[in-house]
């Protein structure tokens, strides 16, 4: 094994190379483009086999990806943000084809207003698509998760496409030490794709993705997809063991960082969770009983494990890097649903929304969140949802609004 500095994009490209993918339908979009550029370069220079085809849109890219997977080759693709949304019809469609392949999404905030830096509204828009979702916090995890994702999606108990998510900029353009396993080692962990009975061959007529009329058969097919996704919880658990044996790194479905016996927990997904880890370390040094719970697997939702990890805590802060307009943080709602009715559920489950469009969450905000939930636990009352947004930021925004000729009369409470 070789350890070297790689960006998240580089790690994703390496993973596709190690997974021996046959086919890469592609379309450029910032901040994902470096992935397909690397793969195109390796294929052109003969460093890896495979075929890369640039389609004319992400919608077509996903269609080609699914169609090739149903024909029986191993497929990799990558996109981001608006591209994921442009492909959204096909995300929902190809999962129903039960065609396993891996799609890396490099998270970036959605339009409007259009922006460059990350949050998770793009990937969460695909939450109900039938793609499984693995969320990464480091560049190493990006590489490892793509390999895991092929095993997971191709498993006969699952047979679903998998999205591996990383944050734009914070992972995509950031280099970190990444261990690149040997290709022989990967081949042992990840044998060639066994397409099974669903494929296109002249000798075996096959009609795929066929229409149904009537809710009875429709419900059957859709619920079977759900059951396959649920199976992925058990399959993932087995794979985590196997992966650890093969490569020496363990990636639990839900990471639990210094949370044994912690009275207070942060819950979050993605690369900002490592910032929460840094805050946990500082808080621990200062005598706080704090830890972090980080779901890596978001679909299927590891509810049993989350219930187990959150049980008996005094207070939990869910930090959502997304916003469901008119509802709030998506993860908070999902965690609350998992905990409902549990006798030992934490009495305080507070919602924080931060990091939208790449807005930083500095250490002192994590400290303050810890303080807020500790105070809430003492008072026995969950605080209202909180946007991580400061008076300083509003004043800066007011300066921009002044340039945009926004009438001051229309402005609410002045900061």
């Amino acid at each position, binding site marked *: 094994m070789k350890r070297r500095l790689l960006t998240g994009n580089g790690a994703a490209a390496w993973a596709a190379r190690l997974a021996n993918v046959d*086919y890469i339908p592609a379309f450029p979009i910032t901040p994902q483009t470096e992935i397909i550029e690397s793969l195109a370069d390796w294929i052109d220079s003969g460093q890896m086999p495979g075929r890369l085809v640039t389609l004319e849109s992400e919608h077509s890219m996903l269609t*080609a990806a699914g*169609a090739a*997977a149903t024909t029986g*080759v191993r*497929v990799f693709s990558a996109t981001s943000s608006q591209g994921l949304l442009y492909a959204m019809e096909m995300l929902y469609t190809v999962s129903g084809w039960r065609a396993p392949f891996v799609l890396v999404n490099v998270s970036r905030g959605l339009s409007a207003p259009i922006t460059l830096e990350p949050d998770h509204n793009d990937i969460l828009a695909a939450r109900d698509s039938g793609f499984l979702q693995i969320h990464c916090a480091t560049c190493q995890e990006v590489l490892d998760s793509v390999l895991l994702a092929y095993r997971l999606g191709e498993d006969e108990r699952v047979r679903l496409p998998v999205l591996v998510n990383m944050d734009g900029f914070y992972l995509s353009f950031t280099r970190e030490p990444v261990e690149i396993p040997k290709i022989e080692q990967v081949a042992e962990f990840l044998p060639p794709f066994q397409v099974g009975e669903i494929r*296109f061959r002249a000798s075996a007529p096959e009609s795929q993705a066929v229409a149904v009329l009537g809710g009875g*058969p429709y419900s059957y097919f859709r619920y079977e997809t759900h059951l396959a996704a649920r199976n992925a919880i058990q399959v993932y658990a087995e794979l985590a063991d196997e992966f650890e044996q093969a490569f020496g790194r363990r990636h639990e479905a839900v990471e639990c960082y210094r949370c044994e016996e912690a009275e207070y927990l942060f819950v979050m997904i993605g690369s900002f969770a490592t910032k929460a880890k840094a805050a946990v370390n500082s808080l621990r040094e200062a005598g706080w009983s704090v830890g972090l719970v980080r779901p890596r697997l978001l679909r299927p939702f590891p509810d049993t494990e989350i219930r187990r990890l959150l049980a008996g805590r005094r207070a939990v802060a869910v930090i959502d890097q997304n916003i469901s307009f008119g509802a709030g943080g998506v993860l908070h709602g999902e965690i609350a649903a998992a905990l409902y009715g549990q006798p030992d559920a934490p009495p305080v489950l507070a919602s924080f929304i931060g990091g939208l469009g790449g807005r930083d969450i500095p250490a002192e905000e994590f400290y303050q969140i810890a303080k807020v939930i500790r105070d809430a636990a003492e008072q026995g009352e969950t605080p209202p949802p909180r946007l991580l947004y400061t008076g300083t930021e509003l004043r800066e925004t007011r300066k921009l609004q002044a340039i945009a000729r926004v009438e001051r009369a229309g402005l609410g409470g002045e900061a």
Partner: protein
Amino acid sequence: MNETAFKNVKSLPSSHLLGTGTPMCAGCGGLEALHEIYDVLGENSVFVNAAGCMTLLAVYPFTPFRGSWLYTAMASAPAGAQGIRDALDILQQKGEIGPEEDMQVVALTGDGAAYGMGLSATSGAIERKLDFLYICYDNEGYGNTGQQYSGATPHGAKTATSLGLSGFAGYKKPLFDIWAAHRPAYVATVIGAEPLDLARKIEKAKALKGPRLIIALSPCPTGWDFDPKESVNIGKLAVKTGVWPLKEYLDGRVVHTKLPPRRLPVERYLETQGRFRHLFQPRRQEALLAEIQQRVDGYWEGVES
């Protein structure tokens, strides 16, 4: 390409490959064209279908195809064809399947997808020189949703979204020209009512590599409002009046494969269909009829000169 197996109508296939039992309307000109095409193309084919009337050709667990089928979505059937074509090539290159397992990859869409939503995907596939056959069954409107006007609807036609006295205000988009401008391997117009012309074109297309695109005008009893038994007659009239020129693009040249010796007045075609009835009743709309005739005449002047 002078040798054709289809010397005359007697040499057309007498046994048919496409299965019965589909939910297409009785008298469907699109299904007629498709089964004629399928007879020539053969079962070594995988059809990649876009949303449209023919989505329902295969309804679980019933399929009329002897070969294979993949339903995609309205906009991206050519991209689905790309994925299957590339995968079959890759599998052969890797030696995982032999050439006997290979198939013709066929995109099958209606005019709604071909003229509109899927045009970008088609343009991309042609530009990538995708080796595939594209069949558009053109019934000149969004038929599966109740015949609203599409980019393929002819001027003056009544549709569910052009119910006024003048019918559809726009003009049928020149898809043949748009496709041919990409310089693909082959483009042709066909119609089920002219089976010999159709068979020869599919025979030709089948032998070529690269993008091969076919538009089949598809008389539609439901959407055009006529008695199903008139479907072939109306198709023949479309050719005889010059409304539907039968032609092909090959090697940079457009050739008309059936020149109507004496074109019949366009009215003869229009009056057969309820969608044009307002041109005649309660009173004749002379100006509109003249305009439609002039446009057809203008087209053929360009051809015959």
